[in-house]
């Protein structure tokens, strides 16, 4: 019980410490700015798209974006585009009819969260090992508590960043889009933030797991960026080379070790795939973290 309490204390302190870290704050602000700009530019694009669609469908022209989003969803080119993006009929079915703003934000959050994770948390453990700050802690608690506590603290930090970015994106949408300032849309945006947060956990585990291997914070960040890039590249390669027979048939099983294979489960509406996907991603996150921790456990600090 006391180990859990100690882990909780470390997690809370890590969160507060991360909030005070200049570097993390700069990255957080940049991420918020990116979310706001992304939403702003996407609304501009949406407005242009809707205007063209309205002309093609001979609907009255609108002054604000978002008015003909239902019509937009019904248009074949848009559906084809979404199908290509999701590569999954079930997901397409689930997201059909959702407000385009939600999808724009969801795409942004899912795409950039891994990068946010590496830049905010990728160096935290290496930084403390390198500076020797860890030496003040690990005679007070176990190394496992320290590692897990830092991980959970950073989970809070990323969660906060995503919630703030979702809220900022919603505010932009409310200002710029007709009739989009509904509480429903806000709740949906928060929901997407939470889904993106769960998706960030394996990447956080990967970045922080790798951070155990070095004393250099910059090396840890570079290792994190390389590892996350490798995850994306591997996912693409696995999708590309998968076949029905031979050794290539086993490639999707290998792909299960990568977060990307479970991402689309978080885009589903039904609770079962959502829970399964969340559980798998959280487990993957802890597995990555513990792989790095296994090295740290036996190393001298």
């Amino acid at each position, binding site marked *: 019980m006391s180990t859990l309490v100690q882990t909780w204390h*470390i997690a809370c302190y890590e969160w507060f410490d991360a909030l005070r870290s200049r570097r993390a704050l700069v990255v957080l602000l940049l991420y918020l700015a990116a979310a706001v700009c992304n939403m702003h530019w996407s609304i501009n694009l949406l407005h242009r798209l809707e205007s063209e669609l309205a002309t093609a469908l001979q609907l009255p022209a609108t002054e604000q974006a978002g008015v003909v989003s239902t019509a937009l969803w019904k248009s074949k080119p848009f559906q084809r585009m979404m199908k290509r993006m999701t590569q999954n009929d079930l997901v397409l079915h689930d997201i059909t009819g959702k407000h385009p703003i939600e999808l724009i934000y969801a795409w942004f959050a899912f795409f950039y969260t891994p990068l946010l994770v590496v830049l905010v948390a990728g160096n935290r453990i290496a930084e403390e090992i390198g500076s020797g700050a860890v030496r003040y802690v690990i005679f*007070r608690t176990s190394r496992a508590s320290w590692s897990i506590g830092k991980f959970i603290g950073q989970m809070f930090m990323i969660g906060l960043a995503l919630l703030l970015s979702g809220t900022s994106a919603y505010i932009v949408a409310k200002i710029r889009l007709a009739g989009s300032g509904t509480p429903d849309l806000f709740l949906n945006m928060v929901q997407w933030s939470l889904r993106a947060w769960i998706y960030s956990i394996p990447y956080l585990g990967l970045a922080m797991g790798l951070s155990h291997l070095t004393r250099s914070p910059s090396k840890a960040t570079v290792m994190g960026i390389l590892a996350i890039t490798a995850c994306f590249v591997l996912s693409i390669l696995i999708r590309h080379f998968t076949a029905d027979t031979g050794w290539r048939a086993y490639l999707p099983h290998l792909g299960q070790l990568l977060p990307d294979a479970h991402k689309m489960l978080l885009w589903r509406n039904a609770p079962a795939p959502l829970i399964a996907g969340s559980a798998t991603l959280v487990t993957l996150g802890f597995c990555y973290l513990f792989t790095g921790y296994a090295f740290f456990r036996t190393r001298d600090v």
Partner: protein
Amino acid sequence: MDYAIESTELVKRYGARRALDGLTLAVPRYAVLGLIGPNGAGKTTWMMSIAGLLHLHSGTINLLSRGPFDPALHSGRITLLPQDSELPLESRPIDLLTHYGLLQRLTRREAKHAATEMLREVHLGDRLTATVRSLSHGMRKRVMIAQCFIGSPELVLLDEPLSGLDPREAAHMRTFLTRRRGRQTLVISSHNLNDIEAMCDRVAFIEKGRTVRNTTLEEVVGKNSTLVYRVTSEPADYAALTAAVSDATFSFDAETSDLTCRYDPRRFTAEAINRILLPALLAQCDVSTITRGDNLENAYLNQVIGNG
């Protein structure tokens, strides 16, 4: 004897080099032990191994009669001031020490109270909420010392606690640490032998990863076997002195003008020696002070030179 630390035959290798080469060292409870040795002798390695920061290749450690370091057993009972280790730069001393107190299983109120008290004790009461980044080197060092005493641990390991402190703060810290005598077991590693002499009641000499000597400070400096006379000039007739006290040996340090007389404590007391020797000495020169025992620096250097 009840020991706070019993370390036996410790071996720690870095490649082919043995930082600890079968080091055996026991520290009695409530002792204030000074660790003395040249750079690379293994003092820091020993301390870090005791606190579980380094993994040993062989040897056994028994801390506070509860086996080797285990955070579940020793958390809050053992603390360490590591050498060359920064505190988190964005943290504030009060938050940091409260956090450490919480990890030592104090309640939030106890931890905050202890943190405030300790920071005041080290003269940082006005910098409780400044970031560590904004503190000077000496102030950071005082925060590092303060963190060791949160929650009154039974065993405190201090690696070079006074280095980097200004003379006033160093003197204050010496008093602060000396006040802990008899309440906690302290192990202090330092190259400043005057500090060790002022604070410790035991000393251990470490050389090349081994313990050369581990005994009381009194025995090392010869409180019961040495008298030091500060004289105005070197006595010309040593034969007269030797004739006065048979079996005693004399050495003169021209730099300090100290005449050291070493005698067999089983045969003489310091008072007896003084009664016999002083008239013979005054016949040759003036004596300004008489001290029982040599200083630690001389005693250490004699030991080191004696061992080649």
